[in-house]
């Protein structure tokens, strides 16, 4: 082939690759502006303050109420519950994998945890309805076990693989010199883990927790199937709650195009988007911090 043609191909390829890079920004911007556009359309009809602080979500009533506070509190409650379960379990398992487990045990456990990550959320939700839900119901004496606690357990299971993997990376990234110094002054393995390795890996562990939180906030199918979806203001872990994601999933299928209710669901999605964006940015801050620390 002639050199000129080869050089032209090279230039064209370079242009094509760069275009795809720019397209990625366009997609994120597209999602952002789609949410913004529809949210603005909603706020032309309902005041933003009423939307954020309103305690009633009843878009099909007369008059319709668009207060998203119950949904926000539900999402926070379920996420908080999930993290109370997943953080200790995740850090414990990651410590076991990084400091205690032998090579052979590790080579079995690692793929097992990756398998847990790949179980579709709808399958976990299904098992909840047939196994865990009735179990919780018989303990609490309710007619069904579809409540915030139930959702929290499922979200904990779903965010565990992320938390374990990232925490383990952080723990294994702690320089060996730190551990050796600890052993040399007579500390045992446990003392070293608690007082040296975990504090040294703290930024990485925080990043892992943030990724887990992001996952739990945005998860849809499991909370939709497991939390009961009562749109009243949540009263606690043993009551049915309705998260932001579940509200969008339930109602979007039924609303007419471009009504206030339709725009309201995009407004919820915009709040959800900002929440996960914030959590991810905080997580990324800690990831960078622990990378810098490792380089030093």
């Amino acid at each position, binding site marked *: 082939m002639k050199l000129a043609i*080869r050089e032209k*191909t*090279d230039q064209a*390829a*370079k242009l094509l*690759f*760069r275009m*795809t*890079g*720019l*397209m*990625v*920004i366009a*997609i*994120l911007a597209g*999602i952002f502006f*789609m*949410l913004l556009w*529809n949210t603005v359309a909603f706020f032309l009809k309902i005041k933003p303050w009423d939307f954020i602080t309103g305690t009633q979500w009843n878009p099909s009533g007369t008059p319709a109420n668009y207060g998203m506070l119950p949904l926000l509190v539900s999402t926070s409650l379920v996420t908080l519950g999930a993290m109370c379960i997943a953080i200790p379990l995740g*850090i*414990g*398992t990651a410590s*076991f*994998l990084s400091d*205690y*487990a032998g090579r052979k045990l590790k080579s079995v*456990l690692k793929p097992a*945890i*990756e*398998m*847990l990550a*790949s*179980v*579709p*959320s*709808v*399958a*976990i939700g*299904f098992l909840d309805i*047939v*196994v865990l839900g009735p179990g919780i119901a018989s303990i609490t004496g309710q007619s069904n076990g579809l409540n915030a606690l139930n959702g929290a357990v499922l979200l904990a299971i779903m965010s*565990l693989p992320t938390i*374990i993997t990232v925490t383990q990376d952080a723990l294994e990234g702690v320089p060996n010199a730190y551990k050796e110094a600890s052993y040399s002054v007579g500390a*045992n393995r*446990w003392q070293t883990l608690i007082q040296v390795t975990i504090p040294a890996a703290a930024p990485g562990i925080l990043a892992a927790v943030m990724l887990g939180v992001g996952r739990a906030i*945005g*998860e*849809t199918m499991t909370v939709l*199937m497991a939390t009961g979806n009562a749109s009243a203001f949540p009263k606690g872990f043993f009551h049915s709650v309705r998260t932001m*994601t579940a509200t969008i*999933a339930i109602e*979007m*299928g039924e609303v007419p195009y471009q009504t206030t209710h339709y725009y309201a669901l995009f407004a919820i*999605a915009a709040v*959800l*988007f900002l929440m*996960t*964006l914030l959590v*991810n940015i905080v997580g*990324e801050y800690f990831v960078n911090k622990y990378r810098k620390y490792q380089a030093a």
Partner: protein
Amino acid sequence: MMKKLTPIIEWGTLLLTTGLVCFFLLAILWDLISKGSSSLSWAFISTSPSDGMTKGGILPAIIGTVLLTLITALIAAPFGICCAIYLNEYAEDSWLTRIIRASIRNLAGVPSIIYGLFGLALFVQGLQMGTSLLAAGLTLGLLSLPYIIITTEEALRRVPNSMRQAALAVGATQFESIRDVVLPSAIPGMLTGLVLTLSRAAGETAPILFTGVAFYINKPAGYLNQEFMALPYHLYMLSTQHQAIEQVRPLAYGTALVLIIVVFFLNLSAFYIRYQHSKHE
């Protein structure tokens, strides 16, 4: 006394946490296999549902899931690979590259239901595709894109620089060195990432809720512009929305088992590719 007990408590704590995590996985597998295997038969996976979904099989849902995953791959793979090539082979450390990288990480964190809304606004309503296999596939393609870019870039990064320099030294253009030298040796890593991403996409429900999935279609053949059935949505409907929930439970177990088998099969093939590759190194 305390001195003897402490190591046991310490070990116990870590073993307990790890044990609980393994217990979750085993409980999920055990319940699905023990109760789902009796519903599984050749007839179940080769016939359409009948009698108001209370009898028959799940063939349309299997076909729908396979077609959907194929469309997702056709959209996300070329796009994602090109973007990863740009980032790893061409991009300098400029503000633009940093924005692109930040966008990718944030796209990976966007909740799947928001992709569903984006697909609804852009493909279904904006581009007038209607709720269809194509609209749902495009939506899942966008959702998979950041994962494919991240895994492909990792695979490209593992190709040693000396190989690129060798190609350039014998007079290849940069594109030729990427096409003939870099890509072939990065393929196992790229494939692993692609297959893992697709196994994830195959199990997604939220993004296809409003973009094209349907409760029941009596024709198993899929056309791009029509609604379709998919395994995850079928499972969701059977377990929450059907009038005779108790009656369809065996079918739901069967569907769940088939879905898990599809996802695990994809995962295992990814592990296999990775294993084969690591043997060569």
